[in-house]
């Protein structure tokens, strides 16, 4: 027992000696430098869609004259943009996978994080990209652009409506009563998804930590015409998945109505 005690004392002394040795080292230990916070190289891109009619701001429930000189009152305008991205040469950056724009909800805006730099083009699709369009909508909570609570889902086709354009019209340009004839043109289905590209003539520069706004003008008056198609509401004014020609015309016209402001 005594031997064990002596041995313990010896070991304790030896350990203390070993511990003390580094303390005699002349060179002080350099403390690790504090971690450098990562330098952010991204900024925020805000995409704003500005609906207009004949170049002036557009408002729902206002009577306008369209290309056929009919009085038209738009009561609902909802549409999806999908796979929104910026390009510069061969570089591409995704800004947002999908967004729902509803003219009844004030400014049409969406934003996403983008790598800093100068971008020369904007690409998006009118509609919901196929992978999202074909997915089960039940997983999305209210508030998500793909939530069923938005009232944009065609359950019979398990697909989203891409554009919902509803209102009333009157073929008499001098009519004094409120337009009464219904128009309701809804597009959808994967075949109607249209990708488009808008050049950013002067380049769009994103700087780290800052928000840059890209404003797209949507000429609602042009929903009724394009270089190739004119929608005559007196002839055709309803499409709910059962009138592909009209849905196709509206789709093409809406794409043509978009420009960079």
């Amino acid at each position, binding site marked *: 027992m005594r031997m064990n005690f002596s041995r313990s004392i010896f070991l304790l002394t030896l350990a203390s000696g070993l511990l003390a040795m580094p303390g005699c080292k002349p060179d002080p230990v350099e403390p690790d430098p504090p971690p450098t916070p990562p330098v952010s190289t991204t900024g925020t891109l805000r995409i704003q869609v500005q609906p207009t009619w004949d170049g002036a701001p557009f408002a729902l429930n206002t009577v306008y004259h369209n290309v056929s000189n009919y009085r038209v009152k738009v009561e609902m305008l909802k549409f999806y943009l999908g796979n929104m991205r910026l390009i510069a040469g061969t570089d591409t950056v995704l800004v947002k996978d999908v967004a729902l724009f509803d003219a009844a909800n004030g400014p049409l805006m969406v934003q996403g994080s983008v790598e800093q730099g100068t971008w020369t083009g904007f690409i998006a699709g009118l509609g919901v990209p196929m992978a999202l369009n*074909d997915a*089960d*909508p*039940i*997983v999305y909570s*209210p508030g998500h652009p793909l939530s*069923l*609570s938005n009232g944009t*889902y065609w*359950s*019979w*086709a*398990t697909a989203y409506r891409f554009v919902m354009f509803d209102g009333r019209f009157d073929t008499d340009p001098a009519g004094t009563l409120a337009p009464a004839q219904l128009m309701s043109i809804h597009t959808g*289905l994967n*075949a*109607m998804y249209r990708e488009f590209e808008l050049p950013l003539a002067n380049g769009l520069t994103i700087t780290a930590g800052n928000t840059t706004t890209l404003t797209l003008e949507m000429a609602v008056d042009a929903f009724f015409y394009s270089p190739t198609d004119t929608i005559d509401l007196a002839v055709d004014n309803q499409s709910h*998945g*059962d009138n*592909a020609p009209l849905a196709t015309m509206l789709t093409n016209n809406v794409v043509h109505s978009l420009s960079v402001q």
Partner: protein
Amino acid sequence: MKHSVHNAVVVFFGAALLVGCRRDPALIEARIDALFVLDLPPGAPLVSVPADAPMTQAAVELGKALFFDPRLSRNGTISCASCHFPDHAFSDTMAFSRGIEGQLGMRNAPTLANVAYHPYFFRDGGVPDLERQVIAPILDPVEMDHDLMLAAAAVNTDPAYRALSQLVYGRAIDPFVLTRAIATYERTLISGWSRYDRFVYRGELGALTAQEQNGMALFNSEELNCTGCHNGFDLSDHSLQNIGQYLEYADPGRERITVDPADNGKFKVPTLRNIALTAPYMHDGAMSSLSQVIDHFASGGLAHPNRSAEMSSFAITAEEKADLIAFLNSLTDEQSIDQVR
């Protein structure tokens, strides 16, 4: 040490006895959260079940309760069963079903028998799975005209539903639970209990009369070519076909989904099981009797550009027609296809 073991055993058994006497609701529920034992008739393929929709006893019971619950409609008057009558193999007796406030649907409500085996749903095949099929009638303005969140909230007030939902899905009733539970119940509606099944799959040669056997021979004949589309266990290959019912279809059928004119007038081939119970026939319920249906197929159909290559005219005598109808009548299940009793 021995004492410790002894004490632990005593404590364990004491606790077990206490638990047994408590009538803990969780334990009661746990006893019914077993896998649902699906009674498959001879010849029936196995049923595939999605991972997020387990076919448990509680899931099926909840699904059945929801299937018959009119609170899923906006004004609390229409349930799934309002258009899918159990006595008619879960089909409707009207050409177009009446939905909320008496509004008419756009197509004939089909039987739900054997939907577990369907690769897609609705007459045009536009819905890829049973879960998403459930969404459509609830949202449809002429059927139940409700919002899924509101529909779920309406039934979530029921404590029994809530308990079952927690048990199966670990959550209150929401749109996810609605779709999974109802689809799970529908998946159990297996048809395969007819005299035809006894004859074919059980080898009971006396199960069909001589007339019915003659009808079956006609059905299987190359000349009538019924089996060109009506084949397999479900007596349907579930393909989409234009049968030349019209030269111009008011309902575009599959074209509505694909926006392809080549699909105009194409509809999903229906099962022939329980055909005697599911009149009227065709996508629009335009034919009220099997005799009319046979006449149509015997004519070869109208010369629509998309008419199926399987369609060709044939001659059939009155006696043969009676035999064929007798055979079709033998396809009626001899027991309810609802296994939740």
